[in-house]
């Protein structure tokens, strides 16, 4: 795995890389991917891939309203609220932001 690959993955995963551990991460992931190579030797052309943990199909239920977690309890799990609204950090800005020091 190359450094650009790692940076691309970090971007896809929304994970900020810690510069001091990038080298080790590249090494570790490289080692693991090398280990995976053993699978390539195994012929699997006629094998259907598994698609989940169970072979059960069509788990259906009645289309009924179920207040398993009432709305207020679900809301209470949100970290910050005001007057019944959920408070989130400012997210729509595309400029200014973290470096300006001004609101």
């Amino acid at each position: 795995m190359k450094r650009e690959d790692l940076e691309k993955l970090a971007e896809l995963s929304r994970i900020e890389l810690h510069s001091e551990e990038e080298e080790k991460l590249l090494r570790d992931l490289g080692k693991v991917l090398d280990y995976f190579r053993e699978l390539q030797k195994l012929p699997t052309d006629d094998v259907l891939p598994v698609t989940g943990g169970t072979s059960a199909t069509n788990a259906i239920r009645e289309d009924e309203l179920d207040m398993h977690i009432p709305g207020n309890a679900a809301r209470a799990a949100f970290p910050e609220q005001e007057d019944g609204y959920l408070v989130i950090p400012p997210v729509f800005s595309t400029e200014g932001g973290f470096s300006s020091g001004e609101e």
Partner: protein
Amino acid sequence: MELENLTIASLRNKLIQGEFSAAELTKEYIKSIHENDESIGAFLEVFEETAKVNAEEIDARILKGEELPPLAGVPLAIKDNLLIKGTRTTAASHILESYDASYDATVTEKLRSAGAVFLGKTNLDEFAMGASTEHSAFGVTKNPYDTERVAGGSSGGSAAAVAAQMALGAIGSDTGGSIRQPAAFCGVVGMKPTYGAVSRSGLIAMASSLDQIGPLGKTVEDVAILYDAIRGKDPYDATSVETDPVRIFNLERVKKFTVGVPKEYFIDGLHEEVQRGVEEAITKLKTLGVKFKEISLPHTRYAISTYYIVMPAEVSSNLARFDGIRYARSPHISRTHADLTRKYAENDERIPRDSANPRWSALWEIYFRQRGREFGAEVRRRILLGTFVLSSGYYDAYYTKAQKVRQLIARDFSEAFKEVDVVLAPVTPTPAFKIGEKSDDPLAMYLADVFTAPVNLAGLPSISIPVKKYKIGEKTLPIAFQLIGKHFHENDILSIGGWYEKE
């Protein structure tokens, strides 16, 4: 009060006969936690007050002569990736450090209505990702047999709590061995039920096609009682199914079982004491009259590669929900831009914002920073690995390939189960390893799952049972074996294990 010989099976009569009260018992366990957990580190939180109140409610029911539910007054430790309404549930991650569960996991609800008393939440590898509980954001859980060694993982806190008499039983989760391996390292019994036998509603998901909740206890009988209380179909988990009630078969029926021993599990690098332990278990079961047969599970050697492709793929998807905004808010994020800017400026000189990237936004940056900082190294590694194997251009070579090999591994077992009823195998290649021995080398840690992960890939039930202890220097370390059953045949492995234990 003597906790060491107390079992869930024996508790009921002691409570009814008034030998001690549920409140006294709970108090005794809380005392044991206070005395022992500083050196072990099994608990992330202890519910001293609510445990007392719940135990007193059981005592009141005993006084009134009411019919007692199956787990009346049983003090349990719960892995901290299972939700208990109104209490902190962290999955041992900084990203959930301030998250309070808004509902009960189905398992929690079942245990509660069965009369269990929750003593506290136990430590785990962050989001259950690890085989040693060294990857917890809140400290390592040490092995009660030797505190220089790991308790195993990821349910290390639950296993150590039972082993060190800090809980009468415990609940864990097993995605690639996370109940059985710590049970083996700590000398307790642990069972991973069949995929679908226990509802996963309220379990913080790691890899949804592999995760399964299960019990840990001192004896096979105790594990059977706990499993019976948590199993069954649940509308909140579409993969769950109704299963047979627990039944321990009589010896005549157990004698009719044929147990398979897979030759592929006796590899180079299998610790000689583990090998000896497994042989001892086989000898003992032979004297009970159980028949044995050598079998082959030819794709065993591919299980680690397969598991470490499928699992991280699911991890990368499941953990996408942790954005640092919902569930719990890190102190790095606050309401206004000014606060935010100040906090970052205080903590960080480097602003990674890439104005050249057209997709940059404040939201983008929050995600990056929260997930980069609040997830630990192993979690970040698995998310990156999972994103890689699912990414365009690599998907077929890695993910599809692994899902095909998973089919072959599952087929190995179904072929074997045409000839035998149960499979007996080692749980781990070695006894508990030293703290720090593998924590820096992911691949070495992953290989510790070689005998447990195939069972999850195939969705089968398996129970880890201690067989002996061996002396190493001044200390002794436990050795275990596992019995793997057919889908939904928990009663087969519990019965063989139960008779094994009795002899």
